């Protein structure tokens, strides 16, 4: 059941990205181009998503189990540290270069776009680099491994 609802959530999410126009990098770049002719659409996507999301999180906060009985995994991290800020800056640069972030890129792969597939493979490689660096750090300093201690339940709750 959890497998099916996961698929369904991904499907609805993907449909939302297509309907909103966000599966199209040109439209995303139109939003990021404040200095040119600006397309504010992406802000409306965020507003629509957050309006619904806020209600769901307000409900989720009062529960320890999901409706299907799974553990409610809300992020526990609170720190605004260098990892967060530098990571976000690096992501933002990559996003600005091509107009793709992870979700829309996967949807564009489903549209048969070879370029999107190249982006996704490179993204997986980038994520692999992160795993490799994290693994090395943990092997060197097991006592202060970022995954086990400082970053708590990272594996299961990161976004």
């Amino acid at each position, binding site marked *: 059941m959890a497998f099916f609802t996961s698929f369904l959530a991904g499907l609805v*999410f993907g449909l939302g990205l297509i309907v909103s126009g966000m599966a199209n990098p040109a439209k995303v770049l139109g939003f990021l181009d404040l200095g040119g002719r600006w397309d504010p659409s992406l802000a409306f996507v965020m507003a629509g998503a957050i309006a619904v999301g806020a209600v769901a999180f307000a409900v989720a906060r009062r529960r320890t189990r999901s409706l299907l009985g799974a553990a409610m995994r809300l992020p526990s991290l609170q720190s605004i540290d260098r990892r967060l800020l530098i990571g976000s800056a690096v992501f933002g640069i990559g996003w600005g270069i091509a107009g793709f972030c992870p979700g829309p890129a996967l949807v564009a792969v489903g549209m048969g776009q070879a370029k999107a597939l190249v982006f996704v493979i490179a993204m997986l490689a980038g994520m692999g680099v992160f795993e490799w660096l994290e693994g090395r750090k943990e092997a060197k300093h097991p006592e202060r491994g970022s995954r086990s201690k400082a970053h708590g339940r990272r594996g299961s709750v990161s*976004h």
Partner: protein
Amino acid sequence: MTIDWPSFTPWAALAGGVLVGTATAMFLLLNGRIAGISGIVGGLLRLVTGDVAWRVAFIAGLVVAPMVYAIFTDWPKPRIEAGYGTLVLAGLLVGVGTRYAAGCTSGHGVCGLSRLSPRSFAATAVFMGAGFLTVFLMRHLLSL
């Protein structure tokens, strides 16, 4: 600043956003998880037993969305102006960056802001700011 009125599609954007929010709500209330795409994809690389199927299912949902959409109407063809080299660089940066930040547009931008997380507000401000700056540099200063 000039608004690109012909490209601006507030109603479609809002409707698509509501769908994204609905998917986020479903995933949260049914599966008890955050619909953050970079985390769902990145976690796959760890190959933890019992933690793979739901991730693959979510990603499969995203990838088949265009085919389901096509049952009703043709989807607009995406326009990808970046060349292959640029896409590789962008992909690497997005991959590394989102994992260090533990979230992307969905995890921080939609989920994080929905639950009023200060950490996600900071992340969203930084990646949006970096995105604005990058496009400004590329299009208006370097004219790439």
